């Protein structure tokens, strides 16, 4: 589904440059639930942004669903984002002046789905998230957990192949975090590929594969069977 070959990315700020990703090779199969871990500055968010085409990379090869994503212009990138990818952000990134239903329906606006139809679909997804009663509330009238469920509904409505979640539980308390992770697992059951960037071990432990980044390179990959040992080793250290 996702294939990265020696991806490099450097940020330039004024005269200083920061080499964030130093040749990332990564393959993610369809339907996988993967987490990316790493301390801050390890490049995990940058990696996710590159996969989501929210950011560009300097060199390397990026294939999505068998198609190369090299040198994509903004219009093409918008098309692929809309068709393949759903985003869930730590800060939710909801449009503040649109109500819950309108926020969820927005991706369909860019798919040229009629207003009536997309609002109907949005209600359906809100219902699935248990937010039907909140459809006409503005985002700032919702709790953190509700906001994140709203964002997940928005990510799902365009029936994407991949969900990219950047610290989805970062702004939530532990109970809500568990709820959200439960939601991700349910979505995973539907066969959608999910990539979660997190620094919380409990969250990462819920995934099938943990990719640990350190200083812009992949440090370790923890496969399904080794997770318990890895977790034990982590807590020992």
């Amino acid at each position, binding site marked *: 589904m996702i294939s990265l070959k020696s991806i490099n990315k450097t940020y330039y700020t004024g005269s200083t440059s920061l080499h964030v990703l130093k040749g990332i090779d990564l393959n993610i199969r369809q339907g996988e639930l993967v987490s990316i871990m790493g301390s801050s500055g390890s490049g995990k968010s940058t990696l996710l942004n590159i996969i989501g085409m*929210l950011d560009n990379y300097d060199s390397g090869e990026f294939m999505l669903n068998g198609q190369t994503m090299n040198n994509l212009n903004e*219009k093409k990138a918008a098309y692929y*984002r809309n068709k393949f990818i759903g985003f869930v952000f730590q800060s939710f990134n*909801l449009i503040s002046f649109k109500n819950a239903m309108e926020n969820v329906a927005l991706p369909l606006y*860019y798919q040229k789905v009629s*207003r009536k139809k997309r609002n109907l679909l949005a209600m359906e997804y809100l219902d699935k998230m248990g937010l039907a009663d909140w459809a006409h509330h503005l985002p700032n009238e919702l709790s953190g957990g509700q906001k994140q469920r709203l964002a997940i509904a928005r990510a799902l409505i365009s029936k994407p192949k991949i969900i990219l979640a950047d610290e989805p539980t970062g702004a939530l308390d532990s109970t809500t975090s568990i709820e959200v992770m439960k939601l991700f697992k349910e979505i995973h059951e539907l066969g959608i590929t999910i990539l979660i960037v997190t620094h919380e071990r409990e969250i990462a432990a819920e995934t099938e594969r943990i990719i640990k980044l350190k200083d812009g390179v992949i440090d370790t990959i923890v496969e399904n069977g080794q997770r318990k040992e890895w977790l034990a080793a982590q807590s020992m250290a």
Partner: protein
Amino acid sequence: MFDIDKWQEIFNTISKNKMRTLLTGFSVAWGIFMLVVLLGSGYGLENGVKKEFEGDALNYISVNSGVTSKAYKGMKPGRLISFSNDDYDMLNDIENVDHTSTRTRIVQNNLISYKAEYGNFDIFAVLPDYRYIESLEITNGRALNQKDIEDYRKVVILGRLVYESLFKDGENAVDKYIKVSGVPFKVVGVFNDPGSDRDLLRVYIPISTAQRVFNMGDFIRSIHFNMDGGSVEESKELIENVTAQLSTKHKFDPEDPRAIFVFNSIENYKQFMDLFAGIRFFIWIIGAGTIISGIVGVSNIMMIVVKERTKEIGIRKALGATPMSIISLILQESILITAVAGYIGLVLGVGLLELVSSSLPAIDYFANPEIDINIALIATGLLVVAGAIAGYVPAQRAASVKPVIALKDE
């Protein structure tokens, strides 16, 4: 192409961001409103001054007699200069003049009566050609003529307001007899004068008759010259010539400013026209300034609006918005707001001018404020385009940056 869904999205955005819409709209509406009111008032001033002039021909020169203030050829100052028919005869065939007339105000008693109606009005004794100097318009009957002068006829023409106050219920005044200072005169005509009402509270009688009836000998008060299409230079030449002839005849210093009083409407009108050109220029400068400040205001707001919406743009892009759709969303919204607001400003401005125009009592030097609607529309269009350009540049920039950067914006 009209995309209903897009407009719904735009209206949705506008209605959810009322403050922003209001601010943008207000600056545009205000700019247009001020421009309309300003230009309209300018025209009102111009119309008003023009109207003041309409009363008289804009090309006459009058010479009144005065009292000498300088010693001349052994004579002391303080000598009364008095004109007589001879002076008129002397100046009658002066060059470059179309019409010449004398004018003498009857000052003894200016009561005029018809049956039970009476009133005090200005009585002027004139020559037939005086009608060209005041641009009189005969609405009923006839003007004074040469025969009236030659035969010393007791005839009179009435100003419209004199007629209206003496003759009730639209009674025909022609051939009726009225009393002018107690002497019966036959009304031969009624005149209108497009100028001020003051000029309509008058009656004119033949000078020859007046001199005989009111015992004035051959005295005349002033001499008026009418110069069609005369330039300021020609008018000054005429005045020099007239002054020279009169000073020789009446033995006063041609440089004496008080021996005779000259009024040159040609020069006066020219001065007013120059003043207008100045006022118009001034108004245009202010108008241009208003428009420029409007443009700057709209541009500023648009830039701030786009800046404020950077994160929203990032979100929309993450959800699959193309740069083109972002730019067109912002531009169409800005064009819609500025166009509607501009139109509102235009309507309010024109409405105010209309209100002032219709409810304003007659004030000197101000009449019929109006505005060329094309100028107002062009100004509105200019603001809309400026707003669009001012929105386009940052919108284009925001739409082309990587979403990750836009999303980081707080």
